[in-house]
């Protein structure tokens, strides 16, 4: 019996294959968008549809997990049997935050293969770091633009993991650019429960924060 991960990779290859052969392919990327703001859901839905993606928009992390079948028996198959190829979630949501949703997805053996992108209107480096370390593919600053969606789609269609390492480095570079543009909010507390990873030892993180303060 194929694991969800294998099935996902196979279907992604099929999708890419079909896109290469036939420009009017009906195998579109299916994106699950999670945002508590009605306005933002409408905008992200349109951004994705205009980029030829199927969209399911839900208002909370809880709803998202229900849709993904994490609290049920179904495995990564949503309503009508549509596999989810990408999850885009807002960070600040009441109840379950985007970060908590991200964690739950990455902790699930069934869902962890699905790329997750976090969106936020706040440019807070510790927040961005935390999400990327937890396995988010990308952190987008709101308002999300058409170019962001196009870039995301290209990345997903290429097949995840191929140039994952390089992309991560590029993302880090852009983040350093963000950091030099604005300073993080001092009221944001560091997440004490973040998993300890070699690249984020307490001393490394505090020296990064010190560098940021110096840039003020």
């Amino acid at each position, binding site marked *: 019996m194929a694991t969800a991960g294998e099935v996902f990779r196979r279907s992604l290859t099929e999708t890419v294959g079909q896109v290469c052969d036939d420009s009017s392919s009906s195998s579109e990327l299916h994106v699950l968008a999670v945002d508590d*703001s*009605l*306005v*933002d859901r409408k*905008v992200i839905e349109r951004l994705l549809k*205009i980029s030829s993606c199927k969209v399911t928009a839900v208002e909370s992390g809880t709803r998202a997990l229900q849709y993904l079948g994490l609290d049920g028996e179904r495995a990564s198959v949503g309503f009508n049997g549509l596999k989810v190829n990408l999850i885009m979630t807002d960070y*600040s949501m009441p109840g379950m935050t985007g970060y908590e949703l991200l964690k739950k997805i990455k902790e699930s053996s069934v869902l962890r293969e699905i790329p997750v992108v976090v969106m936020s209107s706040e440019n807070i480096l510790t927040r961005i770091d935390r999400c990327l370390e937890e396995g988010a593919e990308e952190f987008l600053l709101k*308002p999300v633009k058409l170019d962001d969606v196009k870039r995301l789609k290209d990345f997903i269609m290429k097949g995840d993991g191929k140039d994952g390492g390089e992309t991560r480095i590029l993302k880090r570079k852009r983040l350093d650019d963000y950091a030099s543009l604005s300073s993080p909010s001092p009221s944001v507390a560091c997440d004490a429960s973040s998993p300890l990873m070699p690249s984020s030892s307490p001393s490394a993180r505090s020296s990064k924060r010190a560098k940021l303060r110096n840039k003020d």
Partner: protein
Amino acid sequence: MDVVVQLQRQLTDHTASLFHEGFLNEQFNQLQQLQDESNPDFVVEVVSLFFEDSERLLNELAKALEQQAVDYKKVDAHVHQLKGSSSSIGAQRVQAVCIPFRNFCEEQNIEGCLKCLQQVKHEYSLVKNKLETLFKLEQQLIAAGGSFPTL
């Protein structure tokens, strides 16, 4: 087609002033790019959602700030939402007032908050009027047989 030309000019002028005076920013252009023949009312729909959402939030803010013991976390959450949605449609001046508003929340400064509430209500009603005028002009233009370019 005099009427059409006239209306087109009015629409262009009105839109230009909205940008010049800082009521709208580039994000509004982004929304217009998302509108096409298959979704001809997209901008009106999103902006209508913004109006509904904002009116709800402004009411909640007024209520929250009237309380004996103000829950500043709640006030801040509402302002954060307002900041987000105004940013999503490009309502720059509304978004801008939300910044000091959140700072006053953090400081638990009731006077600062009340002042910001007044300001944000003012900016909101200004941009609402101007956007409604914009949409009316667009409707008139279409009715007169013309069309407006989406940037």
